[in-house]
C-alpha cells in the first residue's frame, strides 16, 4: 500500500514536470531569442540561450517599427472597449437578472447565440456595411478608432451580459428590497446596493473584455489603417522586413504580452478575495 503511494507520487511529479516543460519551453525560447543578435539566430547549433546575451533588440524595436504608436493604439482601443462594453452590458445584465419582462428569455438566448458565433462570420458583412455607410454619409468609418471600438465592444457584450448576470443573480433580492423599503428608487438600489456588491464580478468581466480586445486580430486587419493600427498587426512588420529578425519579433512579443500577464496575476487575488457571496445569510 505504501509502496503504491510512493509510486503514485513519483508518477505525479514526473507528469507535472512534463507539463511544465511543455508550458515553459516556448516561453523560454521567446525570452532566449529576444536576447540573440541576428548572427546568433542563424547559427548551425541551436541554443535556447545565446552565448553572448545582448539587450539591443529591446532598443531597436522602437525605431525599426513604430511599436510605441501601435502599443498606444492597442491600449486606447482596449480601454475604450472595456468602458463602453461594461456600461452597456451592466444595465442589460441587471434587467435580465432582476426584472421579469416579456422577451427576457428570447433576449438572453439570442445573446448566447451571438456569443457563440465567431467574428469570421461577421467580418465581410460588417466591412461591406461600413464601407457603404461611409459613402452615403461621407464620414470616414473604416480605419477609425470608433469603428474598431464599437465592433469589439459589441462582440464583448453578450459574454459580459451573461457573466455579470450570474454575478447579479448571487446578490439576494432581499438586499434590494431592503433598499427599497428605505426609500431608494429602483435605479437607486441598483447603483447603491447591487453595483458595489457586484464590483468584483464587474472587475473580472472587465478583465476578460480587456483581454479580448487586446488579443483581437481579425477585425484589426481590415478595420485599421497606418495611424490606428494595433500591435497585433504591427508585429507582422517585424517579419516582413527582409532580414526576418526573430530576435526583435520576440522582444516586441514580450513587450506586448507584459500588460496582460501583469493584469492577470494581479486580478487573480482580487477574484479570490472579492467573492462576497453571503452578505445576507439565507
Amino acid at each position: 500500500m505504501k509502496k503504491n503511494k510512493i509510486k503514485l507520487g513519483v508518477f505525479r511529479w514526473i507528469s507535472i514536470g512534463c507539463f511544465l516543460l511543455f508550458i515553459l519551453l516556448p516561453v523560454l525560447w521567446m525570452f532566449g531569442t529576444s536576447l540573440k543578435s541576428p548572427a546568433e539566430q542563424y547559427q548551425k547549433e541551436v541554443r535556447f540561450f545565446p552565448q553572448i546575451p545582448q539587450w539591443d533588440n529591446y532598443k531597436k524595436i522602437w525605431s525599426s517599427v513604430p511599436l510605441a504608436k501601435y502599443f498606444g493604439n492597442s491600449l486606447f482601443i482596449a480601454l475604450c472597449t472595456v468602458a463602453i462594453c461594461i456600461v452597456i452590458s451592466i444595465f442589460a445584465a441587471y434587467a435580465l437578472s432582476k426584472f421579469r419582462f416579456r422577451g427576457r428569455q428570447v433576449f438572453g438566448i439570442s445573446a448566447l447565440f451571438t456569443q457563440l458565433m465567431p467574428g469570421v462570420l461577421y467580418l465581410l458583412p460588417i466591412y461591406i456595411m461600413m464601407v457603404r455607410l461611409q459613402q452615403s454619409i461621407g464620414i470616414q468609418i473604416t480605419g477609425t478608432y470608433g469603428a474598431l471600438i464599437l465592433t469589439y465592444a459589441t462582440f464583448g457584450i453578450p459574454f459580459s451580459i451573461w457573466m455579470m448576470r450570474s454575478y447579479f443573480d448571487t446578490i439576494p433580492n432581499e438586499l434590494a428590497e431592503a433598499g427599497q423599503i428605505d426609500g431608494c428608487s429602483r435605479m437607486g438600489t441598483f447603483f447603491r446596493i447591487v453595483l458595489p456588491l457586484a464590483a468584483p464580478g464587474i472587475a473580472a468581466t472587465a478583465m476578460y473584455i480587456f483581454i479580448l480586445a487586446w488579443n483581437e486580430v481579425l477585425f484589426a486587419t481590415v478595420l485599421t489603417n497606418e495611424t490606428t493600427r494595433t500591435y497585433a498587426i504591427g508585429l507582422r512588420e517585424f517579419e516582413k522586413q527582409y532580414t526576418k529578425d526573430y530576435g526583435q519579433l520576440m522582444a516586441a512579443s514580450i513587450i506586448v504580452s507584459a500588460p496582460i500577464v501583469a493584469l492577470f496575476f494581479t486580478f487573480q487575488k482580487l477574484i479570490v478575495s472579492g467573492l462576497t457571496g453571503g452578505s445576507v445569510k439565507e
Partner: protein
Amino acid sequence: MLKQLWRRRKKRYRQNWIIIKENCCAFSFMEMRSEFIGGRIVKKLLIQRNKKKRDWLPFVCIFPALLAMLFIHFIPSVIGIGISFLNFSSEALRDWSKADYIGLANYAKFFSSGTTGDQFLSSVKASLIYTIASLVLIVLLGLFAAMLLNQEGRVYRILRAVFLIGWILPNVVTGYIWKSMFLSESGPINAILMKMNIIDQPIYWIVGPLSIIPPIVANVWRSWPFAFITLLAGLQSIPQDLYDAADVDGANRLQKFFNITLPSLFAITRVMIMLLIVWTALDFVMVYTMYGYAPPAEANVIPVYVYNMGYQTWDFGKASAVSTLLMLVMLGLCILYVRSMFQEKKE
C-alpha cells in the same frame, strides 16, 4: 367556530395586503417570489395590478445592448446571407447596383469539380483535421492536468497559475513563438528531435504536407488551459461522499475513475466541448500569423480561406456563400449547446 376562523383569516389577508401594497409601490415589477406573498387572493390582486400598465424600465436597460447587437450582429448576418446570392466584387463595394443577382451560382461553384471546388474540399479537410486533432489533444491534456492538480496546497496553487500561461499570452505572440520554434534550420524542435536521434534530416514543418501540425500544436498550447480550468472546477464539485461510498464497496482507482469521475464530468464537458469546437473550427489567428496570406493547401483552414477570398481576390459573393454555410453549421451546434445548457439547469 367557523366564523371565527374566517375572521382571523380575513384579518391576516388584510395585514398581508398592507405589506404587499407597500412593496408594490416600491418596486412593483421587480421579481417577486411567491414566498413573501401571503394568500391566493392577494396574489391574484397583485397580478392584476401588474397587468394594468407596462413597465418600461427593463426595456430601457437592455435597449443599448440590443441596438449594438442589432447593428453588429443581426443586420450583418442578413446582409451576409443576401450577398451570398450576388456577384459581389470590389467594384460593387463602391456601387451596390453593380452587384447582380445570380441565385445559387456562388454555392454551386463550391460543389462542382474545378479549382474552386477542389480548394474548398481541401480547406474543409484541413479544418476538420485541425478541429478534431486540436479538440482531442486539448481535452486529454486538460483532463490529465486537472486530475494531477486537484490537490490542496500552496505548491499546487502556484502550479495552477503557471499552467494558465498559454491562455493569457496574446494569440499572435503564441503563433509567432511556435512558428520560430518549428523553423527547419534554426528552430529548436528539429534540433531536439535530431539530438534524440528520432530524425536525421531537418523536417520542413512550415511548408508542404506537414504544415497543419504547427498551427495545431500552437492552438493546443493556447487552448488546453481552458479545458484544464473548466475540468478542475468540475472535479472539485464532485462530492467526496461518492468516493467514500466507493471505498466502502471496495472499488479500485480505475473503477472509481470510470464510474464516478467521468460521468460526473460529463455535463460540464459537454458544454466545454461545444465551445471548443466552435472556437477551434473558426480559429483564424494561428494559421494567419504563421502563414499570412498564402498558407499551404494543407493548412488552408476555412476561416483563412474565406478571409483570403474576400480580401485577396475581392470576391465577396463567394466568400459570403462559404460564410453562410459555416453559419448554418454553427447554428446547429449552437442549438445543441443552448438545449444542453437548459437541460443542465433542469437537472
